[in-house]
């Protein structure tokens, strides 16, 4: 027979001394480590993505469209931007994207921040050295030094290339962000399904999306718990690495258990390997018009680009 749990509370737990440190010191605040920043940054980002749901529920131009039309149009314009060889084409496209954002009641400040931080800015920094003649050969327009009698410095080709890459990156990200902030997550998923992504993928995507939040919470909890238990400050790097090692195992344990239980929950409701879904998408005329406009816009973009020269 099982014993009674007549546990006696150890006296140290009842004493009024704070923590382990008998001097009662509270310790000083330390700056967050890389891991901590990523964690808080990550959960902020996730939260932001959730908030973008209310943009998706505003009544704007893009919000009214079927997700398949939006995704299809986005793909077309992305290809257009990819094929464009001229800065002018890309800038014109960007203006159109901004106008679309305005028509969809996406606040400009939010949109610019979301797009430009951080990939395009980072791209800008990255391509700067490529403006130099040592990377991109060509006509030196700003001479900085000379080497073996050859003038070296910024080249026209380098500058143009840098501008081209940065603006293409910005246009592309703007297009994707515009579509995702104006489409609620489940509609986006339905759109992907409508575009022919197999059901099993859709199911995995939908569930993974949900479990990102759950696992992120566990990581944050684990990190917080660890931080709460760690008094002495170890070197940042090493702490971070040890944390990654130790928590990865525990996280997988958690993930494993989670997947087992989710599996049981699905099986309990009749899941046998193939999920059926409520399909609610219907292409309306407006969606077809939107798609046609996207096709036209892409064609126009590429024709204009060709007319500007090769």
């Amino acid at each position, binding site marked *: 027979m099982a014993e009674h749990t007549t546990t006696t509370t150890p006296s140290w737990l009842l004493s009024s001394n704070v923590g382990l440190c008998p001097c009662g010191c509270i310790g000083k605040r330390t700056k967050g480590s890389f891991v901590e920043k990523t964690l808080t940054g990550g959960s902020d980002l996730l939260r932001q993505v959730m908030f973008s749901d209310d943009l998706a529920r505003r009544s704007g131009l893009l919000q009214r469209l079927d997700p398949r039309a939006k995704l299809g149009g986005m793909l077309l314009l992305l290809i257009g931007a990819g094929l464009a060889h001229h800065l002018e084409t890309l800038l014109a496209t960007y203006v159109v994207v901004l106008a679309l954002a305005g028509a969809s009641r996406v606040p400009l400040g939010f949109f610019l921040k979301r797009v430009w931080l951080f990939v395009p800015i980072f791209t800008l920094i990255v391509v700067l050295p490529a403006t130099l003649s040592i990377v991109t050969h060509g006509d030196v327009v700003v001479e900085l030094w000379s080497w073996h009698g050859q003038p070296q410095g910024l080249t026209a080709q380098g500058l143009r290339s840098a501008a081209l890459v940065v603006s293409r990156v910005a246009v592309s990200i703007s297009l994707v962000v515009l579509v995702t902030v104006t489409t609620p997550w489940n509609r986006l998923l339905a759109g992907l399904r409508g575009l022919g992504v197999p059901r099993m993928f859709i199911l995995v995507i939908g569930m993974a999306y949900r479990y990102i939040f759950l696992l992120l919470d566990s990581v944050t909890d684990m990190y917080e718990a660890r931080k709460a238990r760690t008094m002495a400050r170890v070197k940042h790097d090493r702490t971070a690495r040890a944390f990654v090692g130790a928590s990865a195992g525990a996280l997988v344990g958690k993930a494993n258990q*989670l997947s087992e239980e989710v599996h049981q929950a699905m099986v309990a409701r009749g899941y046998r390997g193939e999920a059926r879904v409520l399909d609610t998408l219907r292409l309306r005329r407006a969606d077809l018009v939107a798609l046609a406009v996207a096709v036209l816009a892409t064609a126009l973009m590429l024709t204009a680009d060709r007319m500007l020269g090769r």
Partner: protein
Amino acid sequence: MHIPDGYLSPSTCAVGYAVAIPTWAIASKRVSKVVKTRNVPMLAVFSALSFLVMMFNVPIPDGTTAHAVGGAVIAICLGPWAAVIAVSVALLFQALLFGDGGVLSYGVNVVNMAIILPFVGYGIYRLIAGRTPLTSGRRVVAAAIGGYVGINAAALAAAVEFGIQPDLFKSADGTPLYSPYHLSQTIPAMAIPHLTIAGLVEAVMSAAIVAYLQRADVSRLVPSHPGIPLTEADRAPRPARTLAPARVALGFVVLMVVLSPLGLLAPGGAFGEDNPNDLNLNKLGLHAVPAGLDKYNGFWSHTLLGGYGFSSGDHADLGYILSALIGIVVVGVAILLIGLVMRAVLGRRDADREREQEPQRLG
């Protein structure tokens, strides 16, 4: 390692999708057959995990970031085909929701991180772990090395994709239309952070996860390791294994993959003189280049720089595109080879296992 849209030409992206789509098709077929209903939640949770792992990233100077992916360890836990799906889904979130990695370049990102990484990592893991029992310490080491090599192979592939852009795609006056850096610049820029930081994180993570599973629930590893004994005790005596040709080929491909980034480090040193921007990278303990690597260095600079002399802008585009295709197709074929080999091996083991034991419910 996420390549954003705008860095790669649409044709490169198309090649990426051309490799990714058939791989997905095979993967989903194989996965549904092997693990039945259990796969969906498992895949979902592991892609969530991979997504979280990728969030811990540091920017590196070629326009992307260095981070662990978890592809190798997912391949070890669920099998490489499942890893293809899990990492692809994680990449999809990154691309759609966080603008990290592009939509057109998604196919290429999938090839690097969701195909090359898990298959190379898994191949190395199997080579090293052999038929040691599931609880053996050698498997932990094998997972670490598999993760390390896998992520570096993926980084190398990304560097190659970047590096061929300026030579393949430029306007009439020589303006690079996409990523402007050459192979001699992209390879060290990708290799150094991945050989040091990201590779290490991937290795530590893979090892930690395998060690954890060995301790906590080794039965989780059983489905992806058919025919492998649990402990030393249940190891059945087996006839000595002959080296199958496929196995040797796989070993060779893997060896090449391991060697190539090392060899390519050598131009990195030379590059540092040219480009002050990247000097700090070269300080990262890469002064000593093993003498033998000079050979590879010569080999690479000969073929790549010789073939793509970037001063002459009027090279036939066709030739360039062909070279790009060949580069990617070679990688693709290598993967396919590995896949075929493993399918054969797994198929045989599956059959063995079905004969040997009643399938037992786990967990």
